């Protein structure tokens, strides 16, 4: 497991280095690349304060040390567009992203499992074939395209749902009314993301089920005269689930990628939307902060899935041991 941990730390280091190096690779001084347009309105004192605080006029090695040191203290820089420390701006957006990602993860996993089981059980028949084609077509539609279409039809034409944002501003709602308002805003983005992830989960579950369907233990369960539904969901699914859970967990990168685009489409106030706003206004400290936080989320999520899968399946534990022994 230490080897895996090292992979994750190295991945994080790559991203951090990239985050650090890119603005410094740009022509001109790093402070221009990092603060861009905001420099124009800065006083010389502010500029020299920034230079000193982030060590921007020192050699590259020292700059990197200062950069890492600041990161560990939670100092991500100052956003001149939002007029607040980046850490503060970002922490306001994170809960929205987690809400959206969590909801869609939950629904897409659950629906994907049920759909996959029902289709796999009827392998080769009409329902299965129709499901496969549907999944394939759905898989071909990028999240932002699907989002725009849903926004147009359900939001704009039918006016069933709000067009943008995470909650209605200025209403001063409390308790249940506010929760209902948030849910209404959550619906379309969450639906989009669920539909984006659904085909993948469906295909995973279906193929995993096909692998266990003919196993003796499933036949035994049938032979005992258990009802079909019990055989399917109590016996077959239990055997087919572990690899699916692992793969779903490992696809955190895809999940957060999806969140990113969907937030932009619906102007949902999470990290993706924040990133987009910051990018449009050349607010690079915020751009970096968003990407960094999402990266950390993805890596943590993947790592957790990795650990979980080894706990879940003793055979993997054996594999991991062999792999460790080999390298």
């Amino acid at each position: 497991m230490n080897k895996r941990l090292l992979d994750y730390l190295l991945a994080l280091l790559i991203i951090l280095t990239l985050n650090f190096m890119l603005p410094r690779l740009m022509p001109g001084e790093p402070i221009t690349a990092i603060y861009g347009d905001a420099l124009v309105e800065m006083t010389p004192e502010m500029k020299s304060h920034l230079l000193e605080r982030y060590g921007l006029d020192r050699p590259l090695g020292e700059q990197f040390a200062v950069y890492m040191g600041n990161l560990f203290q939670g100092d991500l820089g100052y956003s001149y567009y939002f007029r607040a420390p980046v850490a503060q701006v970002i922490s306001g957006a994170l809960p929205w992203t987690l809400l959206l990602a969590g909801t869609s993860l939950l629904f897409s996993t659950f629906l994907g499992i049920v759909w996959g089981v029902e289709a796999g059980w009827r392998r080769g028949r009409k329902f299965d074939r129709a499901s496969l084609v549907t999944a394939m077509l759905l898989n071909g539609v990028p999240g932002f395209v699907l989002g725009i279409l849903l926004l147009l039809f359900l939001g704009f034409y039918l006016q069933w749902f709000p067009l943008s944002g995470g909650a209605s501003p200025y209403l001063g709602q409390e308790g249940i009314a506010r929760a209902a308002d948030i849910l209404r805003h959550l619906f379309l983005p969450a639906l989009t993301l669920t539909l984006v992830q659904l085909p993948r989960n469906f295909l995973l579950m279906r193929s995993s089920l096909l692998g266990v369907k003919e196993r003796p233990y499933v036949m035994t369960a049938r032979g005992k005269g258990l009802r079909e539904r019990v055989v399917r969901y109590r016996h077959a699914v239990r055997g087919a689930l572990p690899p699916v859970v692992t793969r779903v967990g490992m696809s955190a990168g895809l999940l957060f990628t999806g969140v990113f685009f969907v937030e932009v489409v619906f102007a949902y106030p999470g990290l993706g939307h924040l990133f987009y706003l910051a990018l449009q206004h050349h607010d690079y400290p915020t751009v970096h902060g968003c990407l960094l936080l999402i990266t950390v989320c993805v890596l943590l999520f993947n790592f957790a899935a990795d650990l979980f899968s080894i706990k879940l399946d003793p055979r993997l534990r054996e594999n991991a041991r062999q792999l460790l022994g080999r390298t």
Partner: protein
Amino acid sequence: MHVNYWDELKGDRMGRAGLYMTGALAVVALGASWLAPHDPWAYVAPPLSPPSWSHPLGTNEVGQDILSELIYGTRTTLLVAVSSALFSSLLSLLLGLAAGLFRGKVERVVLRLVDVMLVVPVLLVALLTAAYLRPGIPGLVVLFSLLFWPPGARIVWSQVLSLKQQGHLTAARHFGAGTWYLVRRHLVPELYPLLAVNFIQVVRRAVFMEAGLAFLGIFDPSIKTWGLMLHYARDFVFTGAWKWWLLPPAAAVSFTIISFALLGYALESALDPRLRRHVHAGN
């Protein structure tokens, strides 16, 4: 192991559909300058004109012909996706071969790199890099090639390891064949089918990512792409122009991804005997 992949592809309904669809895209991309009714960069009509005979999809916010933009977008998309897939497959092949043949230190370094790259969220790295460098087509191809090689390299590596154990390779070795000869005559030809599947998958990912980056506006604005069309059309969603401005590029992106997915799926089933249809006929 020796299957006629071309026949398998043509015999499969999905494979046939994929071939026709990608073929159509290729024709549009290659013949863009003949097919497009106008120069997509020229200001040919008043901005935001609705569809008419001379402009079947109307014009955009600066008066460029949308249909011509759409046709030239095909060229950009395929150019970026196919070249990225080509270069990244080449990288996969070289690194995978090196790891499988030389073992030892080379293998350790390559595999570790693959493992690390696989947990790095690819899109985020692309976003970050592109946000600064605003790459044109060549930059994007380099970026995608560097990001997409790891899965392929791992597949090549594991295939090389298992091929090395096989009888005909041992026989060739004992007849005095050198490493380079083995690679050229025995390993690479056997890797082609796997590389083909990998190639198609990279194409699909590259189409998606190129459209996504352009949709966010992180792209050289002078290049015609579907993603940028979506990016600009989005501001006019509520005017009714979406019917001829937003839907066509959206459909084009989906069409492209689906056509390559069909092709990839058919290739994969041709490769994997367990997935081949006629084997399952009695099932």
